């Protein structure tokens, strides 16, 4: 892998928008492994990711980023580990209108090392919807576990919103690198 190429992983629960986020920014049509969703009780949508999503984006400064999306359901946990292997960083997407959004945040942040193994950026969707949790609630939840991670409100259909998450993650990587160099 060249120094200017990064692998980052989009994760989060079913319906959080991982496939949509990768589709919003990928330079090429993303690889999708969507299949018929038979668990409409968990999330009412026709299709769900069973394998992975894959896309790629070239940024202005010569940096190339490979984008991988995980399935969201716990039964696919083994794919989180496979896709997380050798990742430079992780973007956790959470749907603020889901009842168990804070528990989901804990589960996904924890599964990817709580920010200790690799940098994590959190994107919160649908936070403006009636009854949804505020961004502060997510930041406070992380703080209560002793974590300070960047938390943004995003609409994963909007390219700029998703790019903000990717750019932030790349900044954290750069800071980590310079930290290691000066240590």
């Amino acid at each position, binding site marked *: 892998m060249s120094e200017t190429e990064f692998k980052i992983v989009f994760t989060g629960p079913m319906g959080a928008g991982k496939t949509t986020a990768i589709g919003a920014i990928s330079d090429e049509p993303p*690889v999708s492994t969507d*299949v*018929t969703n*038979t*668990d409409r*009780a968990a999330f009412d949508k026709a299709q769900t990711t069973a*394998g992975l999503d894959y896309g790629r984006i070239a940024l202005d400064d010569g940096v190339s980023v490979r984008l991988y999306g995980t399935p969201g359901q716990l*039964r*696919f946990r083994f794919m989180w580990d496979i896709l997380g292997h050798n990742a430079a960083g992780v973007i956790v997407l959470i749907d603020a209108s889901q009842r168990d959004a804070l528990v989901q945040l804990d589960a996904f942040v924890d599964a990817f090392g709580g920010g200790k193994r690799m940098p994590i950026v959190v994107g919160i969707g649908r936070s403006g919807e009636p009854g949804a949790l505020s961004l502060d609630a997510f930041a406070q939840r992380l703080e209560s576990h002793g974590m300070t991670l960047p938390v943004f409100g995003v609409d994963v259909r909007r390219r700029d919103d998703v790019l903000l998450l990717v750019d932030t993650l790349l900044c954290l990587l750069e800071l980590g690198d310079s930290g290691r160099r000066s240590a």
Partner: protein
Amino acid sequence: MTTSQRFGRVATGVAQKHLDAFAQTTPGVVSAVLLSADGFEVASLQVGKGGAARLAAMGSSLSAIGSAIAKEAGIVECNRMIIESDSGTIVIMTIAEARPPMSLAVIASDASMLGQLLWAAKNCCNAIARAFRE
């Protein structure tokens, strides 16, 4: 929601019978799981509790990735995947005609013969597809 509620009590019962018959008549079959495309166990054979659920999820991921690679390569659809090792074989066969779409994952020992295994598994898939079309 239980498996039979999700996929239909009669159809899952029929599928289980087909799996049993498949294992009894095909040399080397160690275990098998009928799984939905989104990774739920529909019926299983000789797999410990928890093992079937895990195999169902892994089988659906492999099946979905196989389909994506086939599409990328322009060969339209992945019908089956074969994983071979010195001590055994795993076959994942797509049952596209079933509603909802399903796959059959079979684990066989080195006592199996690949051609016979594939032929018998295909027959089993055809019978299962009929059960889930009706």
